[in-house]
Structure formats: structure tokens, C-alpha cells
């Protein structure tokens, strides 16, 4: 009786909730309560449920109007709003216990549409009735189908799993078998896979033949216990369980719609076996990622000693599952498969097991070597698409992990020696930019020598690409430094897995080598390509990184650009390059001054080479003289340029030719300014801009044209502005 009261309470609560919005009267709650109770007693639905829960065994069905009336009542509610959990329990119990025989059984089952959840206890009880009563086979099937339909709505599954063996026993029934297999598939956990169950299923297989439902259940068994059973599913059978046409589906969807419930798709036909894309057969499939599968080859004692239950990574379907099982994930049998899924990559980031990483690296190195270094098949052209896809996937993984793999680094060092600079160029350069800091002693042989050959023998676009790649590499090294140096300051020691220490001075050496190397490449590259402005732009990109190493990355290292970069940038005919050079010089100045002031404060011995300051000053003086003072002076610089040579060029007043007015990059601006300033003037005299007022206007004008680098440079370096 108590259950019934509870039931009616909660049932009407649902109704109350619904009516609460349109109840406008402001009667007191107590009155409302009374009203509700009165209604309840008369509610035909509650009465109907009461009838079904109390009906005596053996009550006749034929000619029983009361049964008919109550059943109609329940059906009406069920198809309209769905049944509450308690109502479901009552009706399921009534139907499966066969209290009024088997004839109303199917009819009742067909109206069991849950409004919210299905109580697990009711299902368990019903399963028990399944073996006790003499339920006709079609009704049994109907019941299992119903369980499959509402499986996701069952509130908990632990007790159902507890009677796994009991459910398993129904497998022997030929009619029930397909549906029971599906139910078992949904319920199976690792601990439920046992030898005798495997044998039973295999016995059935030999009796019934290759039935898909048996295979799917067995394939799940294989995922959990590959040491017990093995099979390979032909591709035509990979579709999963048939989504059994269930009589509840449409009605259930209607109910859910009406109740505004967001219930996941009613039948989960999740199927573990990955449907492999039907890739065309290749003789050598080293570029194919291995499929993820559970480990077959387990250490027998390990299984026993480690009491925790491991979850194969294959079974993890979502990120939340991954988080929940983080501590007990079992790595797949082939580590290469981790690269295939983004979820696995998330986990790879946390893998500490060095053997596992080594396995991954063996596989990756093997694939790269086979494809690009050994390529014994000779048909390498045919699979360029696959190689591209493979490298893109690798890059994607590396970007996600923000780190390269040692085997791909090792591969690159070899590959650079034989690379033609055009095969999969963007990908290779991208991979290259991920390589970690190389000790100064080896950087030359590993990196510089092959790159130098490639650089000088390839097109302009490759040169640009390479400079960009080296810029990225430098950025990554510097970022790495700033992160780890910071951790060091905070005294966070990294775990002991690391086998290599690199000192700050060692790191500085490597960075310096890299910057000097790019400086040399850039000098010669600019000369070879006739100071191409595209190349210059990439080079200036690089120096934008270099000039800020101290302030942005906290690395006390300053390297000035070589004359071969500085002067072409200064003499460039496009204003953008000159502007960027000015910006770079400005940043150098800011970095150097702050380095110097810090040196004074902390008295720390971080010493910036005096030559660096000297070079910087030379450049600065040269720039200011040229742009501002109209007085180019080559004597102070590291250029030997005799007066005779300058005279030979036949340019009058050569020293003024590179001020802000006459510099080829800015001349068009000067002309434009002149026109705007003196629109009436017929003859143009650019020198008139040099008078103090027009000069400052001219500067203002230039600054409004977006030359922010120039603006910073002038404002910080010219006495009047500084």
C-alpha cells in the first residue's frame, strides 16, 4: 500500500508541475493541497494502477470490463505523457507475473512507455519472471526488445550486470538468442568474459553458423580478453546489431517530445569494431596507422598483482570517460594507433611509461624510414597522397603535444642529407621547425650543412620557407626556454625521467649558432636573389624574434643582424622593409637598455658582448645620420667605401640621398606631401620640406601612413623627440 501512496504522490507532482504555470489563482497552498488530494482519490489513472497492483491471480480476462476500462486508462496516459517509474514497475510486474494469464501481457508491454527513467529493480524482477512463468516465446522476445529499447533509460545497471550469468543462460534459446546477445553486448564488462561463456558461444556458433549477433558479442569479448578468443570480422558484417524494429520507438519519441526530455537516442548500437575505410590494397602499408586493439600478450603475474582493473583504451569513447579512468587505462597493443584518435592523443600527453614512448617511436621511425629513406618499392610517386596525409597527421599530433617525436627528429637529420627540397616541402619544413634544441657541438653537422646546401641550390620560395621555418624553430626554442627557466626559478623540479640536462650556457650557444647561421644564409640569400623584398620580409620576421629575446623570452642574449642583412634592409626600395628595420632597431635598443639596467641592479654577471653594443651603435648612428641628418658617413661604419667610388657613381650630394625625403622608399611620400603642403607650387623642391616646420609636419604625415616602426625609432632615438 505504501508504494501505491508514494506512487500517486509523485505522479500528481508531475501534473502539479505542469499546471503550476497556468494557475493564476492566489489561493493559499493549503487549500491547493486539499484540492489536490481530493482530485487524486478520484483520478481514474491512480485507480487503474491500484487495480493492476491488487488484482487477484486467476481473475478471468474474457468479459472483464473493469480490466478493459483500466487498461484503456493506462494506455491513454502512457501514450500521452509516458508512465512514471512507479507505474512502470506496477505494470511490468502485472504483465510478467501472468496474474491474469498471458493474453493481456503483450498489450501491457506495448504501452510501457517511460516518462523519465525505468527503475532497474523492475527490469530485474521481470527478467526473473521470464524464467519462472510460462510466458509465450513471442512475448519473451517482445520483453527483451522492450529492454533494449529503453536500455539507456534504465536508471542504473549494476544489478542487471550482477545477473549477467542469469541473462546469459537465455542464449541457449534459439529465438531469444539474437536479442539476448544484444543485451549482453550492452552489459558486458571485462569481468563477465569467462572461458565457459566463450565456449558456450562458440558451441552456438558451430550450431547456428556465422550469425552476426554472435560475432559481435564475441568481438566484444575479444576486446576484453583477446587471450581467450580471436576472430576477424569480414567487412560486410561490420554494421553492428540490427536496429530491431521496435513498436515503441515512434510513440516513445512522441512522449519525449511532449515531456521536453532530452534523452539520448533510444537504442545504443555502439559497436567497438572500427569500420576500416576500404583503402586500396598496397603492397607495403607502412603508412597505415595500426588499428587500436587491446593487449593480448600480458604478463600473467602482472594481472594478479595489480589489483586494479584496467580499462583498455579502445573502450574509452569520450573525454569524460577518459578522465574517469585516467589512472587505470591500459595502453593498446600497438602504440602507433594512438596517433589515430584525438582522444588517445590527450592520453598520450600523460603517458609516462618510457617503454610505451619508445614503442611509439620505433613504429614512427620505421614508417618514416620505410617511406622516405628506404623506399625500396620505387613506386613512391603513387602514394604521395598517403605520405602527405601521414605527415599531416604527424604534424597535427606534434602540434597538439607541442613537441616533436625523437624518431621523427632522427629521421629528419638523415633525410635532410638526401632531400631535394621540393618533396612535401611544407610538411618537411613544418616537421623541421619542431626539432628541439640541438647541442652546439652537433648543430653544424646535423642541421646547418644539409640546410646550407639546400638553401643555396633552391628557389626563392624555398629560401623564404626555410627562413620562416628557422624562425619558428627559434621561437619554439625560446618559448621552451622561457617555460623551463621559469619552472627552474620556482624550483619545480621535473620528474626524473629526463636523461639530459642542458645548461643555460649550452642553450645560449645553440641559439647563438642558429642566429648566426640564419644571418649568413640571409646575407648570401639576399645577394643571390637581388635583395628580393619577399625574402627580405621573411628575414626581417626572423630578426623581429631575435631582437626581443631578452624582454620577451628572458634570455640574456643579443645578436645583431650582420651587415649583409642590415644594409639591404636599409637601402630597400619599399618603405615597409625600412619601417620594419626601424622597428627592429628600436626593439634592440629597448632590450639592450633594459639588459644593461638589470645588469646594474642585480649585479649579475650576464655579460653582453661589447662588440654587440659597438655594432648596434654603428648601425644606429648610420641610420640616424642617413635618415635624419642627411649626412651619410661611412667612416665610422664597418664598411670601407672610398670617396672616389661614391664620386664615380655620379650622384651629386651623395650623403643626403638617404634622408627621409630622398630615400627611395619614402620619396613618393615626400612628393605626395609636397603636393599636399603646397598645392599651388609649380616647381617641386623637395628640400623645402627640410625646414623645421614642414619637416615636423612631414614626420606627422609619415606617421599617419602607418609607419609605426619608424615612429618608435624616431621618437626614441632622436634628441628632439626622445
Amino acid at each position: 500500500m505504501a508504494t501505491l501512496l508514494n506512487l500517486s504522490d509523485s505522479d500528481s507532482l508531475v501534473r502539479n508541475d505542469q499546471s503550476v504555470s497556468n494557475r493564476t489563482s492566489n489561493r493559499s497552498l493549503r487549500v491547493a493541497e486539499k484540492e489536490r488530494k481530493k482530485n487524486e482519490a478520484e483520478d481514474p489513472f491512480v485507480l487503474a494502477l491500484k487495480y493492476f497492483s491488487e488484482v487477484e491471480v486467476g481473475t478471468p480476462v474474457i468479459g472483464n470490463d473493469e480490466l478493459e476500462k483500466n487498461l484503456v486508462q493506462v494506455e491513454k496516459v502512457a501514450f500521452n505523457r509516458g508512465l512514471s517509474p512507479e507505474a512502470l514497475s506496477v505494470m511490468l510486474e502485472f504483465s510478467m507475473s501472468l496474474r491474469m494469464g498471458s493474453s493481456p501481457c503483450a498489450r501491457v508491454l506495448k504501452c510501457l512507455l517511460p516518462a523519465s527513467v525505468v527503475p532497474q529493480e523492475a527490469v530485474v524482477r521481470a527478467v526473473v519472471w521470464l524464467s519462472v512463468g510460462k510466458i509465450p516465446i513471442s512475448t519473451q522476445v517482445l520483453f527483451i526488445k522492450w529492454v533494449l529499447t529503453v536500455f539507456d533509460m534504465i536508471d542504473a545497471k549494476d544489478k542487471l550486470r550482477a545477473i549477467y550469468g542469469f541473462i546469459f543462460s537465455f542464449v541457449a534459446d534459439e529465438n531469444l538468442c539474437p536479442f539476448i546477445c544484444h543485451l549482453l553486448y550492452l552489459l558486458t564488462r571485462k569481468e563477465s568474459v569467462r572461458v565457459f561463456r566463450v565456449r558456450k558461444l562458440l558451441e552456438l556458433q558451430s550450431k547456428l553458423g556465422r550469425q552476426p549477433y554472435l560475432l559481435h558479442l564475441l568481438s566484444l569479448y575479444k576486446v576484453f580478453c583477446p587471450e581467450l578468443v580471436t576472430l576477424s570480422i569480414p567487412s560486410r558484417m561490420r554494421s553492428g546489431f540490427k536496429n530491431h524494429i521496435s513498436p515503441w520507438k515512434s510513440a516513445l519519441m512522441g512522449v519525449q517530445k511532449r515531456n521536453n526530455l532530452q534523452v539520448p537516442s533510444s537504442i545504443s548500437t555502439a559497436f567497438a569494431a572500427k569500420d576500416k575505410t576500404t583503402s586500396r590494397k598496397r603492397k607495403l602499408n607502412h603508412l597505415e596507422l595500426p588499428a587500436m586493439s587491446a593487449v593480448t600478450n600480458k604478463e600473467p603475474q602482472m594481472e594478479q598483482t595489480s589489483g586494479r582493473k584496467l580499462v583498455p583504451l579502445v573502450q574509452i569513447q569520450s573525454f569524460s570517460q577518459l578522465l574517469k579512468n585516467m589512472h587505470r587505462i591500459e595502453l593498446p597493443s600497438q602504440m602507433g594507433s594512438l596517433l589515430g584518435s584525438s582522444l588517445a592523443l590527450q592520453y598520450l600527453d600523460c603517458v609516462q611509461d618510457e617503454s610505451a614512448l619508445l614503442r611509439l617511436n620505433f613504429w614512427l621511425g620505421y614508417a618514416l624510414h620505410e617511406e622516405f629513406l628506404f623506399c625500396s618499392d620505387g613506386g613512391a610517386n603513387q602514394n604521395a597522397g598517403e605520405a602527405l596525409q601521414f605527415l599531416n597527421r604527424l604534424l597535427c599530433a606534434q602540434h597538439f603535444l607541442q613537441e616533436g617525436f625523437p624518431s621523427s627528429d632522427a629521421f629528419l637529420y638523415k633525410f635532410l642529407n638526401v632531400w631535394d627540397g621540393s618533396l612535401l616541402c611544407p610538411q618537411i619544413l613544418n616537421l623541421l621547425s619542431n626539432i628541439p634544441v640541438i647541442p652546439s657541438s652537433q648543430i653544424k653537422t646535423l642541421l646547418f650543412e644539409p640546410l646550407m646546401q639546400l638553401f643555396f641550390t633552391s628557389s626563392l620560395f624555398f629560401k623564404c620557407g626555410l627562413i620562416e621555418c628557422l624562425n619558428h624553430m627559434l621561437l619554439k626554442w625560446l618559448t621552451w626556454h622561457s617555460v623551463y627557466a621559469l619552472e627552474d626559478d620556482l624550483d619545480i623540479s621535473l620528474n626524473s625521467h629526463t636523461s639530459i640536462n642542458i645548461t643555460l650556457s649550452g642553450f645560449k650557444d645553440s641559439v647563438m649558432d642558429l642566429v648566426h647561421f640564419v644571418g649568413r644564409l640571409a646575407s648570401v640569400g639576399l645577394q643571390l636573389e637581388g635583395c628580393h623584398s619577399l625574402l627580405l620580409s621573411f628575414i626581417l620576421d626572423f630578426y623581429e624574434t631575435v631582437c626581443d629575446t631578452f624582454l620577451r623570452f628572458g634570455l640574456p642574449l643579443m645578436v645583431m643582424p650582420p651587415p649583409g642583412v642590415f644594409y639591404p634592409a636599409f637601402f630597400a626600395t619599399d618603405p615597409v622593409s625600412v619601417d620594419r628595420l626601424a622597428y627592429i632597431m628600436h626593439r634592440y635598443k629597448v632590450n639592450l637598455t633594459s639588459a644593461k639596467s638589470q645588469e646594474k641592479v642585480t649585479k649579475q654577471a650576464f655579460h653582453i658582448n661589447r662588440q654587440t653594443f659597438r655594432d648596434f651603435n654603428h648601425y644606429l648612428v648610420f641610420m640616424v645620420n642617413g635618415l635624419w641628418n642627411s649626412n651619410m658617413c661611412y667612416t665610422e661604419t664597418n664598411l670601407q667605401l672610398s670617396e672616389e667610388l661614391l664620386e664615380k657613381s655620379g650622384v651629386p650630394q651623395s650623403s643626403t640621398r638617404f634622408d627621409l625625403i630622398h630615400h627611395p622608399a619614402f620619396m613618393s611620400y615626400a612628393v605626395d606631401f609636397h603636393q599636399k603642403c603646397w598645392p599651388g607650387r609649380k616647381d617641386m623642391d623637395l628640400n623645402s620640406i627640410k625646414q623645421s616646420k614642414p619637416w615636423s609636419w612631414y614626420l606627422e604625415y609619415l606617421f599617419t601612413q602607418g609607419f609605426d616602426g619608424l615612429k618608435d625609432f624616431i621618437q626614441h632615438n632622436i634628441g628632439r623627440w626622445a
Partner: protein
Amino acid sequence: MPDSSLCRPDKWSFQSQNGHEAEKMARTLLLALFEPIWRPVEAHYRRSFLLISPTVPASVSRAGVNQQNLITLLSFGRYIQNMEGSYMSVAKTPHGSVVKRRSKSQIYQQSIRSCFSVASRLGLTPGQTKMRLNTSRKAPKSQNITDKVNPEHLALMIKTEWQLSYVTPLYQFRHTQLKSYGRQLSAFIAAEKQQGLAVEVGGQQNTFKVSFSVLEGLAETNDDPETVLIQVQSKPLFARQDDPQKTVWSGWLSCINSNPDYLRSLSKDFTCLPLFGCKGAEGFTSLVKAWLQMTFDCCFGLLEISQTSLQWLAALWTNCHMESNVQSLKMQWTLPVVPPLHVTYTVSADDALDLWNSVRKNSPEKSKRTDEEECVDIEEVTRFMQGLMSHFYRHFRVDLSAGDLTRVSTALGSAKRSGRIKISNSRYLINTLSLLTEIAFLKMPI
């Protein structure tokens, strides 16, 4: 009506003239400026060209750069290897891993996955395998290994032609678990052969039976893991009940005279058996490989026997003629003409030995090493081959050095470039296998 200000000629002429001047000026300046910087770099540039031009085949530089040429270049790398007897000679540095300088400034560590962790575990400098094909090796001594190895096992190994592959280290391979591996593999083969039929592992298999066994004694040093033999047996379809099962496929995993540094640097989880030989139907090979790959997370790649290795084999086998009759030295070359020209070159063993001895006698080391263990150097091998080739040229006016050596055979065995080897005499089994192990180690990705 165009803008009047734009039409004024005086303005334009002025501007253009001025622009010209400045540009000219800039060019002069740049040329002058570059002069001192340019020289040394240009010199380097030229040098690097000089470096390239003799090594790159003409076809490459002409045809530009593409995948095909990469292969040419690669095969050319092999050529360099032959000439210098060393692979990757470009990148030789002492094996001192990384300089561990300690300074008073901060020390920081690379993150776990970064470059050095794996490589330095393996005792290698990043980016290069320390291993190269040995330039000098002991002359094979006839070994009577019948007292070490079960003669039945030996009989399985010799007189059959094996297709070779290299294998990356096996993860969690245990010599104690061989029985269970056999059960798993036979179930796997049964399941794959009958698609869509589940098979119980360890259940009664009446179609295929796989056995894993250790070939005891087939190892040279203490570090070498024991050789493992895999056999797939099957009963013919219409066989009688008591018919014995027939071996339809067999293969072995071996490691002889391995690189001890490499082995020790691997963690205990790994077993290094880099040489894999197999014989039997292709279908079984791929199934067994697939199972091994899945179970031990290893990778298989074709092991080609390079020209240098073939030359080594030719010389070493000839050397054996002093102890046992090798009958004749038979070599096959393929010359790159259209259509390809195959040259089979057979030398009687006595003549070959004469040549070999003459080449040996010329070597200055000979006198020094008489009392030590006899060693053969790559120079001697090269001289031996050159002698054979010039003899051929004298008679047929065909320069064999332009082609590829594809096959070498004697009574002791035969080896093909495609990675097929047959060893006919058990006394030289260990020697040949250790050479092959060495080649397999060269292919290791890390």
C-alpha cells in the same frame, strides 16, 4: 580632364631622375658593401657545389629535383657507402652523446619526450645511428656447431632459401611464453583463414598448428637472445587420420653477434631479434607478421642485402675455400641499359682464391696480423672485386662497376640483393648470420 598636377612634365622628370639616382646609388653601395662579406661565403658556396657536383649523378642535376631523383640520390648514397665502406659518412661525430657542462648558471632539463630521452637511452647521439657496417671483420672460421646446436634444428636452418626482413625490437616477448604464443597464433591464423568465425584460443585446432621453439645454442655472445623458430603445420585436406602434419610455413627470429651497447640500452621490456627469415606461402607470412606486429608492437621491413654486403659475402666465401671446397664463385650483375643486361659471371673457386690471396698479400696489414686473429678489411674486399671486374672488362669490354651486383653464390650458399639467402653449410652459418644481423641493425629506425 586629367588632374593638372599630374601632367606637369617638370615634376615627373625630376622625380624619375631623382629616383634613378637614388637607386643607382643604392646599387653601387650594396655592391661595395657586399664585397667583403660576400667573398668568404661565396667561397663556401662554391665549395658546397664542388661537393655536390661529383657525387650527384648527372641525371639528377639535369632533371631537376623530384621523388624519382631522390631515389637515385638514395641509391647513390649506397654508392658512397660502397666506396667508403661506411654509411652516413656525412654525419660522423664521436659518440659522446651530449656535452654535460655544468655551470653556475641554471641547469634545466628537457621534457620527457624531447629529443634526447630516447636517443640517449639508446646510447646514441640524436639523429644518427652510431652503427655502420663494419669495415673490418674476422675471416670466417669453420665452426663445428653441431655440438652446440641440435643437428635437427640445424637441418631446419640450412639448405633452404629464406626471405629476410628486419624487425624492430619486440615488446614483452618472453622466451618462457612460447607455448602460449603458439596457441594464440594458431587461433589467429584459423580465425583469419575463416573470416567471420570466432575461434577459441587454445582450443582444438585441427587445421593449423603453430609451434614456437628455441633453437638452443644459435647465438654467439651472451647478450644475444636465443633464436626462435616458428613453424606452421597443417594436415592436408584429404589426409588420413594418422598422417603426420606437414610443415607449410616456417620462419625464425634471430640475433647473432649483436651490438651489445644497443641491446643494453634498451629497457628490459624489449627483446631485440632484428633478423627475420621465412619460407612458405605469402599468405602465411603476412599473417604471422601481422600477428607478431600486433602482439609485440614491432615492425617488419624488407631487408635488402646491399652491394657491399654481397661483396663481403663473395670475399668471405672465397676465403673459405682454403678449408672447404666452395666449387665456384658465381655472381650476377645487372647493367642499366635498355633492355637491362644481366651478366652471370662464374669463376672457379681456385682462381678466385688465387686472386683473393694475391689481394691479401698486397695488404700491408697482413704481415702484422699473422699471429693475431685473421682479419679482413673492406679495402681488400674492394680490391678483390675490382680485380674480378677488370678481368671481365679485359675479355668482354663491359665495365661491371657501372651495374649492380645482384646475386652471389657458392657451394656454401647464395645471397640475392632482394634479401633472399640460402646457407648450405652449417659450419659457416653463424658467420653469415652475424653479417646479416649487422645489416638488420643498420635498418633500425632509432
